[in-house]
Protein backbone atom coordinates (compact mmCIF):
# COMPACT_ATOMS: atom_id res chain seq x y z
CA UNK A 1 0.00 0.00 0.00
CA UNK A 2 1.49 3.34 -0.87
CA UNK A 3 1.16 6.35 1.37
CA UNK A 4 -1.93 7.80 -0.27
CA UNK A 5 -3.79 4.53 -0.05
CA UNK A 6 -2.69 4.17 3.56
CA UNK A 7 -4.08 7.60 4.36
CA UNK A 8 -7.35 6.76 2.65
CA UNK A 9 -7.53 3.52 4.66
CA UNK A 10 -6.98 5.38 7.91
CA UNK A 11 -9.57 8.01 7.13
CA UNK A 12 -12.19 5.40 6.35
CA UNK A 13 -11.76 3.19 9.43
CA UNK A 14 -12.70 5.69 12.10
CA UNK A 15 -14.91 3.26 14.05
CA UNK A 16 -12.08 0.78 14.34
CA UNK A 17 -9.71 3.46 15.47
CA UNK A 18 -12.16 4.66 18.10
CA UNK A 19 -12.46 1.16 19.54
CA UNK A 20 -8.69 0.84 19.77
CA UNK A 21 -8.49 4.28 21.36
CA UNK A 22 -11.07 3.50 24.05
CA UNK A 23 -9.53 0.09 24.80
CA UNK A 24 -6.04 1.48 25.28
CA UNK A 25 -7.44 4.27 27.43
CA UNK A 26 -9.31 1.70 29.52
CA UNK A 27 -6.16 -0.39 29.97
CA UNK A 28 -4.28 2.68 31.16
CA UNK A 29 -6.93 3.40 33.79
CA UNK A 30 -7.01 -0.24 34.87
CA UNK A 31 -3.24 -0.46 35.35
CA UNK A 32 -3.12 2.85 37.18
CA UNK A 33 -5.74 1.64 39.62
CA UNK A 34 -3.74 -1.55 39.86
CA UNK A 35 -0.75 0.29 41.25
CA UNK A 36 -2.90 1.56 44.12
CA UNK A 37 -4.13 -1.93 45.04
CA UNK A 38 -1.01 -3.11 46.93
CA UNK A 39 -1.08 -0.01 49.14
CA UNK A 40 -4.75 -0.42 49.99
CA UNK A 41 -4.41 -4.13 50.65
CA UNK A 42 -1.44 -3.55 52.95
CA UNK A 43 -3.34 -0.96 54.92
CA UNK A 44 -6.42 -3.20 55.03
CA UNK A 45 -4.45 -6.16 56.43
CA UNK A 46 -2.56 -4.08 58.96
CA UNK A 47 -5.64 -2.30 60.23
CA UNK A 48 -7.55 -5.54 60.43
CA UNK A 49 -4.89 -7.49 62.28
CA UNK A 50 -3.18 -4.76 64.27
CA UNK A 51 -5.68 -2.19 65.39
CA UNK A 52 -6.97 -4.22 68.35
CA UNK A 53 -3.48 -4.35 69.86
CA UNK A 54 -3.06 -0.55 69.84
CA UNK A 55 -3.96 0.94 73.18
CA UNK A 56 -2.45 3.37 75.66
CA UNK A 57 0.01 0.73 76.91
CA UNK A 58 1.29 0.36 73.38
CA UNK A 59 2.74 3.86 73.53
CA UNK A 60 3.76 3.97 77.17
CA UNK A 61 5.23 0.58 78.01
CA UNK A 62 8.38 -1.12 76.88
CA UNK A 63 8.52 -4.44 75.09
CA UNK A 64 7.50 -7.33 77.33
CA UNK A 65 9.88 -10.16 77.95
CA UNK A 66 9.32 -13.39 76.10
CA UNK A 67 8.29 -15.19 79.30
CA UNK A 68 5.63 -12.61 80.22
CA UNK A 69 4.22 -12.83 76.74
CA UNK A 70 4.11 -16.60 76.87
CA UNK A 71 2.34 -16.57 80.21
CA UNK A 72 -0.20 -14.04 78.98
CA UNK A 73 -0.86 -16.11 75.88
CA UNK A 74 -1.42 -19.21 77.97
CA UNK A 75 -3.92 -17.34 80.10
CA UNK A 76 -5.65 -16.09 76.96
CA UNK A 77 -4.88 -12.48 77.74
CA UNK A 78 -3.60 -9.91 75.26
CA UNK A 79 0.19 -9.52 75.21
CA UNK A 80 1.20 -6.92 77.81
CA UNK A 81 3.56 -4.01 77.30
CA UNK A 82 4.15 -1.82 74.32
CA UNK A 83 6.88 -0.53 72.07
CA UNK A 84 7.92 2.66 73.82
CA UNK A 85 11.61 1.71 73.69
CA UNK A 86 11.33 1.34 69.92
CA UNK A 87 9.57 4.66 69.53
CA UNK A 88 12.13 6.56 71.60
CA UNK A 89 14.99 4.78 69.84
CA UNK A 90 13.66 5.65 66.38
CA UNK A 91 13.08 9.25 67.47
CA UNK A 92 16.59 9.57 68.82
CA UNK A 93 18.37 7.98 65.88
CA UNK A 94 16.35 9.69 63.17
CA UNK A 95 16.73 12.94 65.11
CA UNK A 96 20.51 12.59 65.36
CA UNK A 97 20.75 11.60 61.71
CA UNK A 98 18.67 14.63 60.67
CA UNK A 99 20.77 16.95 62.81
CA UNK A 100 23.82 15.87 60.89
CA UNK A 101 22.47 15.27 57.40
CA UNK A 102 20.14 18.26 56.96
CA UNK A 103 22.90 20.91 57.06
CA UNK A 104 25.25 18.76 55.01
CA UNK A 105 22.54 17.97 52.49
CA UNK A 106 21.44 21.62 52.24
CA UNK A 107 24.94 22.91 51.65
CA UNK A 108 25.59 20.09 49.21
CA UNK A 109 22.45 21.00 47.31
CA UNK A 110 23.41 24.69 47.26
CA UNK A 111 26.87 23.79 45.92
CA UNK A 112 25.40 21.58 43.20
CA UNK A 113 22.87 24.22 42.20
CA UNK A 114 25.43 27.02 41.95
CA UNK A 115 28.01 25.08 39.98
CA UNK A 116 25.77 23.42 37.47
CA UNK A 117 28.36 23.27 34.70
CA UNK A 118 31.55 22.59 36.58
CA UNK A 119 33.23 19.21 36.32
CA UNK A 120 33.67 18.83 40.08
CA UNK A 121 29.97 19.38 40.64
CA UNK A 122 29.06 16.81 37.99
CA UNK A 123 31.29 14.33 39.77
CA UNK A 124 29.70 15.06 43.15
CA UNK A 125 26.26 14.74 41.62
CA UNK A 126 27.07 11.35 40.08
CA UNK A 127 28.56 10.11 43.34
CA UNK A 128 25.46 11.22 45.23
CA UNK A 129 23.25 9.33 42.80
CA UNK A 130 25.39 6.20 43.13
CA UNK A 131 25.37 6.50 46.92
CA UNK A 132 21.58 6.57 46.88
CA UNK A 133 21.64 3.20 45.16
CA UNK A 134 24.00 1.52 47.63
CA UNK A 135 22.11 -1.20 49.54
CA UNK A 136 21.33 -0.12 53.08
CA UNK A 137 22.94 -3.19 54.63
CA UNK A 138 26.25 -2.17 53.07
CA UNK A 139 25.93 1.27 54.63
CA UNK A 140 25.32 -0.56 57.89
CA UNK A 141 28.38 -2.76 57.77
CA UNK A 142 30.59 0.13 56.72
CA UNK A 143 29.44 2.09 59.76
CA UNK A 144 29.99 -1.05 61.85
CA UNK A 145 33.60 -1.01 60.71
CA UNK A 146 34.12 2.70 61.31
CA UNK A 147 32.03 3.50 64.36
CA UNK A 148 31.06 0.34 66.23
CA UNK A 149 34.58 -1.09 66.36
CA UNK A 150 36.01 2.32 67.26
CA UNK A 151 33.59 2.86 70.12
CA UNK A 152 33.75 -0.83 71.06
CA UNK A 153 29.98 -1.04 71.28
CA UNK A 154 26.84 -0.86 69.25
CA UNK A 155 25.27 2.55 69.66
CA UNK A 156 22.57 4.95 68.59
CA UNK A 157 25.32 7.12 67.14
CA UNK A 158 26.35 4.33 64.81
CA UNK A 159 22.74 3.81 63.81
CA UNK A 160 22.35 7.54 63.16
CA UNK A 161 25.55 7.52 61.10
CA UNK A 162 24.24 4.74 58.89
CA UNK A 163 20.95 6.58 58.40
CA UNK A 164 22.82 9.81 57.59
CA UNK A 165 24.74 8.12 54.79
CA UNK A 166 21.38 7.37 53.22
CA UNK A 167 19.79 10.75 53.93
CA UNK A 168 22.54 13.10 52.76
CA UNK A 169 22.41 12.32 49.01
CA UNK A 170 18.61 12.42 49.06
CA UNK A 171 18.50 15.84 50.69
CA UNK A 172 21.28 17.21 48.46
CA UNK A 173 19.58 16.20 45.26
CA UNK A 174 16.15 17.39 46.30
CA UNK A 175 17.56 20.74 47.46
CA UNK A 176 19.41 21.10 44.18
CA UNK A 177 16.25 20.34 42.21
CA UNK A 178 14.25 22.78 44.33
CA UNK A 179 16.75 25.59 43.74
CA UNK A 180 17.03 24.84 40.04
CA UNK A 181 13.28 25.16 39.67
CA UNK A 182 13.36 28.78 40.76
CA UNK A 183 13.37 31.27 37.88
CA UNK A 184 16.82 32.64 37.18
CA UNK A 185 15.57 36.23 37.27
CA UNK A 186 15.07 36.18 41.03
CA UNK A 187 18.72 35.39 41.65
CA UNK A 188 19.81 38.00 39.11
CA UNK A 189 17.53 40.62 40.68
CA UNK A 190 19.00 39.92 44.10
CA UNK A 191 22.55 40.11 42.83
CA UNK A 192 21.78 43.26 40.83
CA UNK A 193 20.87 44.97 44.09
CA UNK A 194 24.43 44.46 45.24
CA UNK A 195 23.88 41.43 47.42
CA UNK A 196 26.54 38.78 47.85
CA UNK A 197 25.70 35.28 46.65
CA UNK A 198 25.40 34.08 50.25
CA UNK A 199 22.88 36.72 51.23
CA UNK A 200 20.87 36.16 48.05
CA UNK A 201 20.90 32.41 48.69
CA UNK A 202 19.82 32.52 52.32
CA UNK A 203 17.50 35.53 52.20
CA UNK A 204 15.79 35.03 48.86
CA UNK A 205 16.43 31.71 47.13
CA UNK A 206 16.10 29.27 50.00
CA UNK A 207 12.97 30.94 51.42
CA UNK A 208 11.44 30.92 47.94
CA UNK A 209 12.26 27.24 47.52
CA UNK A 210 11.35 26.40 51.10
CA UNK A 211 8.34 24.27 50.21
CA UNK A 212 10.27 21.97 47.91
CA UNK A 213 13.32 21.82 50.17
CA UNK A 214 11.24 20.97 53.24
CA UNK A 215 9.33 18.34 51.30
CA UNK A 216 12.62 16.73 50.26
CA UNK A 217 13.75 16.61 53.87
CA UNK A 218 10.45 15.11 55.05
CA UNK A 219 10.57 12.44 52.37
CA UNK A 220 14.13 11.47 53.23
CA UNK A 221 13.14 11.19 56.90
CA UNK A 222 10.17 9.02 56.03
CA UNK A 223 12.45 6.79 53.96
CA UNK A 224 15.00 6.10 56.69
CA UNK A 225 12.41 5.65 59.41
CA UNK A 226 11.62 2.21 58.10
CA UNK A 227 15.20 1.04 57.57
CA UNK A 228 15.99 -2.17 59.42
CA UNK A 229 19.11 -3.85 58.04
CA UNK A 230 21.61 -1.06 58.74
CA UNK A 231 20.28 -0.68 62.28
CA UNK A 232 20.70 -4.39 62.97
CA UNK A 233 24.47 -4.11 62.66
CA UNK A 234 24.91 -0.68 64.21
CA UNK A 235 22.33 -0.08 66.91
CA UNK A 236 21.60 -3.70 67.70
CA UNK A 237 18.56 -3.07 69.87
CA UNK A 238 17.66 -2.80 73.54
CA UNK A 239 14.86 -3.94 75.80
CA UNK A 240 14.80 -0.72 77.81
CA UNK A 241 14.31 2.94 77.00
CA UNK A 242 17.70 4.37 76.14
CA UNK A 243 18.58 8.02 75.67
CA UNK A 244 22.33 7.52 75.70
CA UNK A 245 23.66 7.86 72.18
CA UNK A 246 26.67 5.68 72.89
CA UNK A 247 24.64 2.65 73.97
CA UNK A 248 22.73 0.13 71.90
CA UNK A 249 19.25 1.35 71.10
CA UNK A 250 16.02 -0.15 69.82
CA UNK A 251 13.96 1.11 66.93
CA UNK A 252 10.44 0.46 65.67
CA UNK A 253 11.71 -1.29 62.52
CA UNK A 254 14.13 -3.40 64.59
CA UNK A 255 11.28 -4.46 66.86
CA UNK A 256 9.32 -5.87 63.93
CA UNK A 257 12.32 -8.09 63.18
CA UNK A 258 12.61 -9.11 66.84
CA UNK A 259 8.89 -9.94 67.09
CA UNK A 260 9.12 -11.98 63.91
CA UNK A 261 11.89 -14.08 65.46
CA UNK A 262 10.18 -14.67 68.79
CA UNK A 263 7.13 -16.97 68.62
CA UNK A 264 5.70 -15.49 71.81
CA UNK A 265 5.78 -11.92 70.60
CA UNK A 266 4.60 -12.52 67.06
CA UNK A 267 1.22 -11.07 67.88
CA UNK A 268 2.73 -7.61 68.27
CA UNK A 269 4.01 -7.48 64.70
CA UNK A 270 0.82 -6.16 63.14
CA UNK A 271 0.32 -3.27 65.50
CA UNK A 272 3.97 -2.24 65.24
CA UNK A 273 3.86 -2.43 61.49
CA UNK A 274 0.62 -0.44 61.45
CA UNK A 275 2.19 2.28 63.57
CA UNK A 276 5.19 2.50 61.25
CA UNK A 277 2.95 2.70 58.17
CA UNK A 278 0.83 5.42 59.74
CA UNK A 279 3.92 7.45 60.67
CA UNK A 280 5.30 7.20 57.15
CA UNK A 281 1.93 7.96 55.57
CA UNK A 282 1.52 11.04 57.75
CA UNK A 283 4.96 12.34 56.79
CA UNK A 284 4.22 11.81 53.11
CA UNK A 285 0.83 13.51 53.31
CA UNK A 286 2.38 16.41 55.23
CA UNK A 287 5.02 16.72 52.52
CA UNK A 288 2.37 16.82 49.81
CA UNK A 289 0.33 19.40 51.69
CA UNK A 290 3.31 21.68 52.21
CA UNK A 291 4.48 21.43 48.61
CA UNK A 292 0.98 22.31 47.41
CA UNK A 293 0.67 25.34 49.67
CA UNK A 294 4.16 26.75 49.15
CA UNK A 295 4.22 26.80 45.40
CA UNK A 296 5.30 30.20 44.05
CA UNK A 297 2.55 31.76 41.95
Amino acid at each position, binding site marked *: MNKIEELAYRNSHTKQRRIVNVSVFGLIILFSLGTAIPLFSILFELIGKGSHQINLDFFTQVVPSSVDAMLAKQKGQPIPGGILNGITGTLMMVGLASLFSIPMGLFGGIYLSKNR*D*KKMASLVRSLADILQGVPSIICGILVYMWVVTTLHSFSALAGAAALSIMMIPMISRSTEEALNML*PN*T*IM*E*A*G*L*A*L*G*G*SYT*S*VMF*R*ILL*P*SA*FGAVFTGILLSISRVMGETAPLMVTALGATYINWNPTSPTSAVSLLIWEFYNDPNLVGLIWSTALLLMILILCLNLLAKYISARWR*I*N
Partner: protein
Amino acid sequence: MHNDMVTEQTPLSQIDNIDKMGNNIDRKIPISRDLLSSFNSNFEHSKPLVTLTDLSVSYSPEKKAIKNVNLTFYEHLVTAVMGPSGCGKSTLLRAINRMHDLYSTIQTEGEILLDGKDLMKMPAMEARRRVGMVFQRPNPFPTMSIEENVLSGYRLNGISLSKSERKELVQTSLENVGLWDEVKDSIKKRGSFLSGGQQQRLCIARTLAMRPEVLLMDEPTSALDPISTNKIEELILQLKEKYTIIIVTHNMGQAARISDMSAFMYLGELIEYDDTNKMFTNPKDKRTEDYLTGVFS
Protein backbone atom coordinates in the same frame (compact mmCIF):
# COMPACT_ATOMS: atom_id res chain seq x y z
CA MET B 1 25.00 78.26 41.55
CA HIS B 2 22.40 80.99 41.42
CA ASN B 3 19.50 80.24 39.17
CA ASP B 4 19.50 83.73 37.63
CA MET B 5 22.89 82.89 36.16
CA VAL B 6 21.35 80.17 34.08
CA THR B 7 22.27 80.46 30.44
CA GLU B 8 22.03 78.18 27.46
CA GLN B 9 25.47 76.77 28.22
CA THR B 10 24.70 75.76 31.79
CA PRO B 11 24.87 71.98 32.19
CA LEU B 12 21.58 70.55 33.29
CA SER B 13 23.04 68.99 36.42
CA GLN B 14 23.87 72.38 37.86
CA ILE B 15 20.52 73.98 37.31
CA ASP B 16 18.45 71.95 39.70
CA ASN B 17 19.09 72.35 43.37
CA ILE B 18 19.47 68.71 44.14
CA ASP B 19 20.72 67.74 47.55
CA LYS B 20 22.95 64.75 48.17
CA MET B 21 20.02 62.40 48.66
CA GLY B 22 18.67 63.25 45.22
CA ASN B 23 15.72 65.24 46.50
CA ASN B 24 14.65 68.33 44.58
CA ILE B 25 14.81 71.59 46.46
CA ASP B 26 12.37 74.08 44.97
CA ARG B 27 13.75 75.95 42.02
CA LYS B 28 13.58 79.73 42.26
CA ILE B 29 13.14 80.33 38.55
CA PRO B 30 10.79 78.05 36.68
CA ILE B 31 12.52 76.69 33.61
CA SER B 32 10.33 76.04 30.62
CA ARG B 33 10.18 72.62 29.02
CA ASP B 34 11.45 73.98 25.70
CA LEU B 35 14.61 75.30 27.26
CA LEU B 36 15.15 71.98 28.97
CA SER B 37 14.73 70.01 25.80
CA SER B 38 17.22 72.16 23.97
CA PHE B 39 19.73 71.50 26.74
CA ASN B 40 19.06 67.80 26.49
CA SER B 41 19.79 67.65 22.83
CA ASN B 42 23.07 69.46 23.18
CA PHE B 43 25.01 66.61 24.68
CA GLU B 44 28.42 68.23 24.68
CA HIS B 45 27.45 70.15 27.79
CA SER B 46 26.37 67.14 29.78
CA LYS B 47 28.82 65.37 32.02
CA PRO B 48 29.89 61.91 30.87
CA LEU B 49 29.04 59.36 33.53
CA VAL B 50 29.65 55.92 32.06
CA THR B 51 32.34 55.48 29.42
CA LEU B 52 32.86 52.24 27.51
CA THR B 53 36.22 51.87 25.78
CA ASP B 54 36.91 48.99 23.40
CA LEU B 55 34.40 46.81 25.22
CA SER B 56 34.14 43.25 23.93
CA VAL B 57 32.14 40.44 25.48
CA SER B 58 32.27 36.86 24.25
CA TYR B 59 30.13 33.90 25.30
CA SER B 60 32.50 31.43 23.72
CA PRO B 61 36.10 31.74 22.54
CA GLU B 62 35.19 31.87 18.85
CA LYS B 63 32.29 34.25 18.84
CA LYS B 64 32.15 37.76 20.26
CA ALA B 65 28.73 39.01 21.25
CA ILE B 66 29.86 42.65 21.25
CA LYS B 67 33.02 43.89 19.54
CA ASN B 68 35.08 46.93 20.45
CA VAL B 69 32.26 49.21 21.51
CA ASN B 70 33.22 52.78 22.35
CA LEU B 71 30.33 54.67 23.91
CA THR B 72 29.74 57.40 26.45
CA PHE B 73 26.57 57.80 28.46
CA TYR B 74 25.82 61.26 29.78
CA GLU B 75 24.49 62.20 33.16
CA HIS B 76 20.77 62.83 33.63
CA LEU B 77 19.92 61.77 30.11
CA VAL B 78 17.90 58.84 28.88
CA THR B 79 19.96 56.86 26.39
CA ALA B 80 18.24 54.18 24.35
CA VAL B 81 20.20 51.23 22.99
CA MET B 82 18.38 49.82 20.00
CA GLY B 83 18.91 47.15 17.44
CA PRO B 84 17.53 43.93 15.98
CA SER B 85 17.41 40.70 18.00
CA GLY B 86 20.81 39.30 18.78
CA CYS B 87 22.69 42.51 18.18
CA GLY B 88 24.20 42.52 21.66
CA LYS B 89 22.24 45.30 23.34
CA SER B 90 21.30 43.26 26.41
CA THR B 91 24.86 41.94 26.59
CA LEU B 92 26.11 45.52 26.61
CA LEU B 93 23.73 46.49 29.37
CA ARG B 94 24.58 43.54 31.54
CA ALA B 95 28.28 44.27 31.18
CA ILE B 96 27.75 47.63 32.85
CA ASN B 97 26.49 46.15 36.09
CA ARG B 98 28.91 43.23 36.02
CA MET B 99 26.24 40.57 35.55
CA HIS B 100 28.59 38.64 33.28
CA ASP B 101 30.79 37.86 36.28
CA LEU B 102 28.24 35.25 37.29
CA TYR B 103 28.97 33.01 34.36
CA SER B 104 32.51 31.71 34.06
CA THR B 105 32.27 31.08 30.33
CA ILE B 106 31.74 34.75 29.53
CA GLN B 107 34.87 36.82 28.84
CA THR B 108 34.80 40.60 29.08
CA GLU B 109 37.59 42.78 27.65
CA GLY B 110 37.98 46.51 27.50
CA GLU B 111 37.34 49.26 29.97
CA ILE B 112 34.24 50.64 31.63
CA LEU B 113 34.57 53.84 33.63
CA LEU B 114 31.89 54.93 36.07
CA ASP B 115 32.39 58.58 36.95
CA GLY B 116 36.10 58.19 36.30
CA LYS B 117 36.56 55.00 38.32
CA ASP B 118 37.30 51.66 36.68
CA LEU B 119 34.11 49.64 37.02
CA MET B 120 35.78 46.33 36.26
CA LYS B 121 38.29 46.73 39.07
CA MET B 122 35.92 47.77 41.83
CA PRO B 123 34.19 45.02 43.86
CA ALA B 124 31.23 43.67 41.92
CA MET B 125 28.87 44.35 44.80
CA GLU B 126 29.86 48.02 44.88
CA ALA B 127 29.44 48.28 41.12
CA ARG B 128 25.96 46.80 41.36
CA ARG B 129 24.98 49.15 44.15
CA ARG B 130 25.92 52.16 42.05
CA VAL B 131 24.41 50.79 38.85
CA GLY B 132 20.91 49.43 39.33
CA MET B 133 19.05 47.19 36.93
CA VAL B 134 15.43 46.58 36.06
CA PHE B 135 14.69 43.42 34.12
CA GLN B 136 12.35 42.57 31.32
CA ARG B 137 9.96 40.46 33.32
CA PRO B 138 8.83 42.01 36.62
CA ASN B 139 10.40 39.93 39.38
CA PRO B 140 9.42 41.03 42.88
CA PHE B 141 10.76 38.61 45.44
CA PRO B 142 7.91 36.15 46.02
CA THR B 143 8.33 35.47 49.71
CA MET B 144 8.63 39.13 50.71
CA SER B 145 5.90 41.69 51.25
CA ILE B 146 5.80 44.91 49.22
CA GLU B 147 7.53 46.75 52.04
CA GLU B 148 10.20 44.12 52.37
CA ASN B 149 10.71 44.13 48.62
CA VAL B 150 11.44 47.84 48.58
CA LEU B 151 13.92 47.42 51.42
CA SER B 152 15.40 44.18 50.11
CA GLY B 153 18.53 45.85 48.77
CA TYR B 154 19.45 47.04 52.23
CA ARG B 155 18.66 43.67 53.74
CA LEU B 156 20.81 41.87 51.19
CA ASN B 157 23.68 44.24 51.84
CA GLY B 158 23.38 43.78 55.58
CA ILE B 159 22.58 47.44 56.20
CA SER B 160 20.20 47.89 59.11
CA LEU B 161 17.82 50.82 59.17
CA SER B 162 15.83 52.27 62.03
CA LYS B 163 12.06 51.88 61.96
CA SER B 164 11.51 55.50 60.99
CA GLU B 165 14.16 55.34 58.27
CA ARG B 166 12.51 52.25 56.87
CA LYS B 167 9.06 53.82 56.88
CA GLU B 168 10.32 56.94 55.17
CA LEU B 169 12.32 55.06 52.59
CA VAL B 170 9.42 52.80 51.67
CA GLN B 171 7.04 55.72 51.31
CA THR B 172 9.48 57.86 49.32
CA SER B 173 10.46 55.05 46.99
CA LEU B 174 6.87 54.05 46.29
CA GLU B 175 5.85 57.68 45.80
CA ASN B 176 8.68 58.16 43.33
CA VAL B 177 7.27 55.42 41.13
CA GLY B 178 3.67 56.48 41.58
CA LEU B 179 2.70 53.35 43.46
CA TRP B 180 2.22 54.71 46.99
CA ASP B 181 -1.43 55.68 46.65
CA GLU B 182 -2.29 52.34 45.10
CA VAL B 183 -0.63 50.12 47.69
CA LYS B 184 -0.28 52.15 50.87
CA ASP B 185 -2.89 50.04 52.64
CA SER B 186 -1.29 46.77 51.67
CA ILE B 187 2.44 47.19 51.98
CA LYS B 188 2.62 44.28 54.39
CA LYS B 189 1.04 41.93 51.88
CA ARG B 190 2.99 39.97 49.29
CA GLY B 191 3.12 41.58 45.88
CA SER B 192 1.51 38.74 43.96
CA PHE B 193 -1.83 40.54 43.68
CA LEU B 194 -0.28 43.45 41.81
CA SER B 195 -0.72 43.75 38.07
CA GLY B 196 2.27 43.39 35.75
CA GLY B 197 2.74 47.12 35.46
CA GLN B 198 2.50 47.61 39.21
CA GLN B 199 4.98 44.79 39.80
CA GLN B 200 7.42 46.39 37.39
CA ARG B 201 7.05 49.72 39.16
CA LEU B 202 7.69 47.92 42.44
CA CYS B 203 10.89 46.51 40.96
CA ILE B 204 11.91 50.00 39.88
CA ALA B 205 11.17 51.31 43.39
CA ARG B 206 13.25 48.50 44.85
CA THR B 207 16.18 49.44 42.61
CA LEU B 208 15.84 53.17 43.25
CA ALA B 209 15.76 52.66 47.02
CA MET B 210 19.46 51.86 46.76
CA ARG B 211 20.08 55.34 45.31
CA PRO B 212 22.08 54.18 42.32
CA GLU B 213 23.75 56.66 40.02
CA VAL B 214 22.79 54.82 36.86
CA LEU B 215 19.60 52.91 36.15
CA LEU B 216 19.80 50.17 33.53
CA MET B 217 16.54 49.00 32.06
CA ASP B 218 16.43 45.90 29.91
CA GLU B 219 13.27 46.17 27.80
CA PRO B 220 11.26 47.06 30.91
CA THR B 221 7.90 47.38 29.20
CA SER B 222 8.02 44.59 26.63
CA ALA B 223 6.06 42.24 28.90
CA LEU B 224 3.44 44.86 29.81
CA ASP B 225 0.19 46.14 28.38
CA PRO B 226 0.05 49.57 26.67
CA ILE B 227 -1.41 51.44 29.65
CA SER B 228 1.27 50.19 32.04
CA THR B 229 3.87 50.90 29.36
CA ASN B 230 2.65 54.47 29.17
CA LYS B 231 2.83 54.92 32.94
CA ILE B 232 6.36 53.59 33.06
CA GLU B 233 7.47 55.81 30.19
CA GLU B 234 6.13 58.83 32.07
CA LEU B 235 7.98 57.61 35.12
CA ILE B 236 11.23 57.36 33.19
CA LEU B 237 10.86 60.94 32.02
CA GLN B 238 10.44 62.04 35.65
CA LEU B 239 13.29 59.88 36.90
CA LYS B 240 15.89 61.28 34.56
CA GLU B 241 16.03 64.44 36.65
CA LYS B 242 17.77 62.49 39.37
CA TYR B 243 19.20 59.44 37.65
CA THR B 244 21.00 58.54 34.47
CA ILE B 245 18.97 56.01 32.54
CA ILE B 246 20.14 53.54 29.91
CA ILE B 247 17.27 51.67 28.36
CA VAL B 248 17.44 48.76 25.94
CA THR B 249 14.41 48.70 23.75
CA HIS B 250 13.36 47.03 20.54
CA ASN B 251 10.44 49.43 20.29
CA MET B 252 11.50 52.36 18.13
CA GLY B 253 8.47 54.37 19.09
CA GLN B 254 9.46 54.12 22.73
CA ALA B 255 13.00 55.20 21.93
CA ALA B 256 11.66 58.18 20.03
CA ARG B 257 9.28 59.11 22.84
CA ILE B 258 11.50 59.01 25.85
CA SER B 259 15.17 58.99 24.93
CA ASP B 260 17.51 61.92 24.51
CA MET B 261 20.33 59.97 22.93
CA SER B 262 20.12 56.76 20.93
CA ALA B 263 22.67 54.11 20.14
CA PHE B 264 22.09 51.70 17.30
CA MET B 265 23.80 48.34 17.45
CA TYR B 266 24.00 45.66 14.81
CA LEU B 267 25.73 42.28 14.98
CA GLY B 268 27.62 43.25 18.11
CA GLU B 269 28.98 46.55 16.85
CA LEU B 270 27.98 50.09 17.61
CA ILE B 271 26.87 51.54 14.30
CA GLU B 272 25.59 54.96 15.25
CA TYR B 273 25.20 57.06 18.39
CA ASP B 274 23.56 60.45 18.32
CA ASP B 275 20.87 62.71 19.61
CA THR B 276 17.59 60.85 19.15
CA ASN B 277 15.88 63.51 17.09
CA LYS B 278 18.86 63.85 14.79
CA MET B 279 19.27 60.10 14.37
CA PHE B 280 15.63 59.40 13.66
CA THR B 281 15.26 62.19 11.14
CA ASN B 282 18.67 61.99 9.56
CA PRO B 283 20.51 58.73 10.21
CA LYS B 284 24.10 58.80 9.02
CA ASP B 285 24.61 55.06 8.38
CA LYS B 286 22.62 53.07 5.85
CA ARG B 287 22.09 50.21 8.30
CA THR B 288 20.56 52.61 10.81
CA GLU B 289 18.27 53.96 8.15
CA ASP B 290 17.25 50.44 7.13
CA TYR B 291 16.46 49.54 10.72
CA LEU B 292 14.49 52.70 11.37
CA THR B 293 12.45 52.30 8.20
CA GLY B 294 11.70 48.68 8.97
CA VAL B 295 13.80 46.97 6.29
CA PHE B 296 14.89 44.61 9.05
CA SER B 297 14.02 44.45 12.72
